[in-house]
């Protein structure tokens, strides 16, 4: 889980750390007072347009310096770019390719800029192109690639020097469902291997699907961070948890759950075969539900949280008025 940075838990080894970081572009706020300590795994960065996601990514990749505070990756700051950029692989959101280059040349040329010898660069280029499934198209010019292929070749160049932290700005844009599934599987494989994969995305259900933890940002401020279930639990007081119970006697269940003081709402679902319950204490509700099932012999088909996902948390914290 992402830990807010404090003196007690400051552990730069193996983490991407923001210590009270603010970034201003003149009078314009980029991000303000950000404290984060990001562990390995997939971290989803979620927020509306202009919320500061790209600023946060540019800060951790050393492309911009904070106006205040300190950013470090595995304890290495932007003052040591040689070491820092060995650790980081960054794919920006921009569809930017030098004219005339083939997919192979695109990946290989930036490896040479990285300082790899010609032989090593070639081997690593093939390896990363293979990882993203672009070996057959390697000899074709990037200008002729589809949007999905361009996304994948950008991912290949970010991965090619074998970084420890992969920072990807909107990496799923333009991918067809098959390619999307393959890329998500690749993220999972890399994260399971100990890599930090930091992904920004507008597609909330995909962030929910792939992320081990999320960072929600709005107006330059971090509004929530951590594993999505933990974030949701912390919001129970202001936003009672919703649980959908599909069963054969939802009316009976409704009458029983209303006896509980933590239940604030119980509503029959449209098909009449389920009950949507809003509760301030989901743990107690689950215990009570067990008792009700045993007492009344309800036939329960499923019990599932209805708003314990990124989308719901996003709606509660950032609001439906914002473009996601």
């Amino acid at each position: 889980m992402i830990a807010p940075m404090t003196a007690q838990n400051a552990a730069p080894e193996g983490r991407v750390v923001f210590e009270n970081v603010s970034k201003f572009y003149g009078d314009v706020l980029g991000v303000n007072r950000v404290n984060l300590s990001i562990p390995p795994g997939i971290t989803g960065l979620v927020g509306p347009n202009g919320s500061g996601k790209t600023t946060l990514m540019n800060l951790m990749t050393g492309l911009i310096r904070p106006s205040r505070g300190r950013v470090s990756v595995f304890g290495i700051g932007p003052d040591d770019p040689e070491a820092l950029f060995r650790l980081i692989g960054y794919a920006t959101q921009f569809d930017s390719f030098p004219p005339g280059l083939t997919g192979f040349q695109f990946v290989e040329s930036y490896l040479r800029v990285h300082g790899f010898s010609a032989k090593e660069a070639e081997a690593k280029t093939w390896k990363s192109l293979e990882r993203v499934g672009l070996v057959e198209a390697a000899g074709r010019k990037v200008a002729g690639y589809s949007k999905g292929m361009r996304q994948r070749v950008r991912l290949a160049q970010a991965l090619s020097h074998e970084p420890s932290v992969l920072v990807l700005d909107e990496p799923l844009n333009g991918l067809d469902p098959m390619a999307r599934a393959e890329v998500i599987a690749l993220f999972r494989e890399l994260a399971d291997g100990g890599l930090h994969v930091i992904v920004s995305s507008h597609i909330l259900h995909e962030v929910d699907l792939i992320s081990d933890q999320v960072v929600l940002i709005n107006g330059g401020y971090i509004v929530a961070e951590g594993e999505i279930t933990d974030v949701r639990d912390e919001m129970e007081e202001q936003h009672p948890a919703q649980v959908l119970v599909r069963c054969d006697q939802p009316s009976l269940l409704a009458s029983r759950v209303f006896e509980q003081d933590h239940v604030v709402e119980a509503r029959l679902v449209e098909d009449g075969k389920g009950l949507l319950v809003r509760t301030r204490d989901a743990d107690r509700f689950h215990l009570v539900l067990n008792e009700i099932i045993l007492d009344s012999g309800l036939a329960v088909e499923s019990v599932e949280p209805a708003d314990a996902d990124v989308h719901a948390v996003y709606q509660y914290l950032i609001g439906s008025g914002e473009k996601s």
Partner: protein
Amino acid sequence: MAVYKRNYGRFQGATTPTWSRFLVLPRYAFKDVFQGRLFVAFFTLCFAVPFVGLILIYLHHNIAALKFMNLPLAELKNALPINSKFFLAGLEWQGGLAFLLTLFVGPALIAPDLRNNGLALYLSRPFSRTEYVLGKMSVLMILLSLITWIPGLLLFFFQSYLEGFGWLRENAGIAFGLFVGSWAWILVLALVSLAVSAWVKWKPVARVALIVVFYVFIGFAAAMNGALNTWWAWMLSIWVAIQNVWASLFGVEMDPDIAVPVWSAWVTLVACCLFCLWLLSRRIRAYEVVR
């Protein structure tokens, strides 16, 4: 406590020296530039004058060849002496071609990266803004060197070889003038064209801007000088400045109409370079601030 399984291997080997990495940029730029037939034809033509110079130097030292061609020997030898004026004329001609070559190549160097937000691709690697500019500059520096001081010095050494060591010793200033004069022009051309490329995204407009900067200012400066009865306005003209620098380096008298003190010519060139570096530093950034 969380336990993270680590099976992803990071590269731990040695890398190439930092100073050499900027050379990756011209490698691909050359590939792109030499794909155009028009450019290849023009670049080949740039060697015509050095080749003619080579023939002239050869004929100058081979009386037998001139005799065979039934040409009046003495007049020819006197009409075309191989001296500082000969090399200065070559440099002026090649300098003009260098400007045309810059019009071909320069505007496309930085603008596409900026247009596509491509700078982050370079700068998110162990590659600084200075190295980026140096890499882009080196495209022009290499191409312009090939048509200015390199053929110039080859001709100089060829002449020295035919004339003898004494001539080389007496005329070492010509070699110095060729080298320093060419580099002064190359640096100015490279920096101005990069600065224009960084600020003007559309290639034809960038080309017009380069013509304005180098040549239209001459007319403006002349008008100002005429109106104010002074020579100071020549300091606005890069072309006049480089002409004066070249003339002083080769020890040749300058056309009085555009003659300025040599220090002022150098001031113009240095100020121009510094201004271009400032323009580049304002523009070459990994991100663009949207206000």
